[in-house]
């Protein structure tokens, strides 16, 4: 096994996976170190799933440039990677003068940024497009280029394509130390020392901590929590665009430590669910996934303002996300404290003063949209630094996985004749076959947990939330991975589902 690499990517979220994919485009020997057992287990798994157009950010920033370019290329990217993408368009709506001011500003900003397909529309056209909106809509900013994609599907596809082109992934490998050495760095995990010429820090919520393993603190992350609801596919069609709401009671700057200063967003996902959220609440924890009462209350209030008829009886799940807000920090009284406003542009640090060490710290919205652009940015820097050229053997295409539910009867029948396991439906809510799950387990990097199967196939994400299929999924994972069912985790460390008599807590 190689222990010396051109580039080491820390973190296998969306950004790490895309960075790895772009690095191998230059033929660089690349390794991705991930503390968890799979890709996309952190902030990449919980966000609004929106592909933005680039009208939300200031002209001339790297964030805006990347977002506008990424949006234009998103169909091509998703085709290359075999990922489902719906360019459904978006409506940003307002009910009064404050919101209208914001919409007009974003419209002008969008035009200046070169975003195409933007229009300010009146109430009549707004209700034609989205008849279930609450009465009293003043105006809407329609953006035809907005789309939606499943973040984990995108991340898994990028990871598979990176791996197919030679990137190595090491899971359950937490980076504990980084030191300089002649011609590069040594990155130490709990199990090995990796010698590398470049480091690209894509550690998401922990990117500040990773950078501080070697460098003095400069930017730190202060997360905010967003609670979300997911509605069943039975609510499909209730909305047909991404809808976001610019509230009248938005708090001005300085409200970072207060909650609720964002309006509601509704997203019709590619799987036919409706995603409702996020709340935007302060939190002092980087621990992902804890929903809170105040967040639910805010969502319920916003829903009653924006779309009171939303069929909440079809809610199947709630979850929470964390947004990694970067702040400059300075030393005061012996400790580093937050200084000024949250940094709104993407923070890309080169703490060593050259491209040998690059840190993405606090890549929040539109981070998913820009994941490929950011990865390309890092790879171009690394390639220039290392003197690497594009590798003609790089193949950008990752074949789409089989999704039997999307096929015709004849196509399914032909497929089953060849692979009978595609005929056996395991997840009844989403119609996922055993064959699709086996493919997910044997993809590289493959699913090792029940949630890993869910991210890759959708199984267990439907209205019964895995009550029907999880035992079967556990048994399949155990069979294919040649281990005991008791060893299969739901998700992260310690999330065992079945217990052996001797391992009981």
């Amino acid at each position, binding site marked *: 096994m190689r222990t010396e690499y051109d580039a080491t990517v820390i973190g296998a979220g969306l950004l790490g996976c895309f960075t790895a994919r772009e690095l191998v485009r230059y033929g660089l020997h690349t390794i991705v170190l991930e503390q968890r057992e799979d890709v996309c287990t952190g902030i990449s798994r919980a966000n609004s799933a929106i592909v933005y157009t680039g009208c939300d950010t200031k002209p001339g920033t790297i964030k805006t440039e990347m977002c506008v370019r990424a949006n234009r290329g998103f169909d091509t990217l998703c085709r290359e990677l075999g990922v489902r993408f719906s360019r459904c368009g978006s409506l940003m709506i307002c009910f009064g003068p404050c919101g209208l001011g914001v919409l007009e500003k974003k419209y002008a900003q969008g035009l200046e940024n070169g975003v195409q397909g933007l229009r300010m529309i009146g109430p009549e056209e707004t209700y034609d497009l989205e008849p279930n909106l609450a009465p009293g809509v003043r105006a809407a900013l329609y953006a035809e280029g907005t789309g939606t994609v499943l973040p984990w599907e995108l991340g898994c596809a990028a990871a598979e394509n990176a791996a197919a082109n030679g990137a190595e992934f090491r899971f359950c490998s937490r980076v504990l130390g980084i030191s300089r050495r002649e011609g590069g760095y040594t990155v130490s995990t709990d199990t090995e020392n990796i010698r590398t010429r470049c480091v690209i820090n894509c550690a998401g919520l922990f990117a500040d901590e990773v950078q501080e393993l070697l460098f003095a603190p400069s930017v730190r992350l202060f997360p905010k929590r967003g609670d979300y609801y997911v509605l069943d596919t*039975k609510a499909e069609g209730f909305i047909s665009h991404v809808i976001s709401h610019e509230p009248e009671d938005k708090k001005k700057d300085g409200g970072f430590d207060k909650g609720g200063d964002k309006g509601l967003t509704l997203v019709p996902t590619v799987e036919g669910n409706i995603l409702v959220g996020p709340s935007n609440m302060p939190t002092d924890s980087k*621990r992902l*996934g*804890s*929903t*809170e*009462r105040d967040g*639910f209350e805010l969502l319920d209030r916003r829903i009653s303002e924006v779309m009171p008829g939303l069929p909440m009886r079809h*809610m*199947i*799940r*709630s*979850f929470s996300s964390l947004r990694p807000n970067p702040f400059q920090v300075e030393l005061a009284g012996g400790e580093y404290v937050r200084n000024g406003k949250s940094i709104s542009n993407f923070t890309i640090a080169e703490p060593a003063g050259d491209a040998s060490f690059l840190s993405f710290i606090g890549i929040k919205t539109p981070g998913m949209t820009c994941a490929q652009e950011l990865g390309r940015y890092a790879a171009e820097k690394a390639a220039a630094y290392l003197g690497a050229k594009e590798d003609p053997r790089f193949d950008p295409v990752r074949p789409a996985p089989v999704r*039997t539910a999307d096929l015709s*009867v004849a196509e*399914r*029948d032909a497929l*089953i*004749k060849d692979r*009978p*396991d595609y*005929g*056996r*439906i395991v997840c*009844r809510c989403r*119609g996922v*076959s055993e064959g699709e799950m086996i493919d997910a387990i044997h993809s590289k990097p493959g699913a090792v947990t029940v949630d890993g199967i869910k991210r890759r196939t959708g199984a267990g994400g439907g*209205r*019964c*939330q895995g*009550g*029907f299929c*999880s*035992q079967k999924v556990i*048994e399949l994972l155990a069979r294919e991975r040649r281990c005991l*069912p*008791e060893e299969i*985790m*739901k*998700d*992260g*460390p*310690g*999330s*065992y*589902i*079945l*217990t*052996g*008599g001797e391992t*009981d*807590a």
Partner: protein
Amino acid sequence: MRDIYDLIVIGGGPAGMAAALTAEECGVDRILIIERGERLGGILNQCTHSGFGAAYFGEEMTGTEFAERFRERMSDSGVEVITGTMVLSVSADRTVTVSNKSGCAELHTKAVVLATGCRERPISSLHVTGTRPSGVFEAGAAQKMLNLGGYDIGDDAVVLGSGDVGLVVARCLAQRGRRVIGVFEIRDVCGGSDKNRTECLDFYGIPLYFRHTVTRIHGEGRISGVTVKDLDSGAERYIGCGTLITSLGLVPERELIEPLEAEDGSLPEWIFTCGDARTVHDTVDAVAFEAEKTGAEAAEYITGGTDI
């Protein structure tokens, strides 16, 4: 398997079997039962406890024995059975699309009996706060893992909801030497039968708390506790636990026919429903009686009221 039938019964649990057998007695010829599991019996296959059959068979037996009685009647009948097969859709032209290991096919029929049973309401559909750890099971899923899978699902269990399945799983855990901390019921009455309350809880000294619910789930990895709220005092307290069993109510599984429902909820005349897919029943005996009537109704529709 041919591709034209007089009657297709979707679901091979007690409702589907009873409906098909009666339809055959009433003169329907080509009947097919489509079962997604590997054998007939449905949910009864995981019900190893007794309390079944007194009304229908005149004697008390376990759920698995009840299923076996019906399977015997099935093997003496001319009803065709296909297991390990999922129905993907039922369309307005009376086509039933199925998938199994041999292929994907469209079957044509004069009538359909939907006998797909019900599913449990997951806790994730409630506004419960906290984390999303492992160790949270719907009671029926837990029962299947325990009784059919032979697995151990953990210790120190809290049961939320006092429906019959929750009570039976509480007993099942207690019988295996697992500690059941208590059953928490949001209403002021037990959801399950008096008999189950006595036999599953009282006998094992498992407390039942009325007007209590779980408001928060704690734990990273595996569940480590729940916050329980007393609805009368409003007080909340933390209870450490290693397993959470939920019994929050059953929902008829009717998604296959929902696309065919008219605005007023009515169904095409060739679709019949029975068992828990029609409405959730208290006992399997009641399901069997009702399904027999449904089978006869379907037969009358198919044969036009005359015995062939």
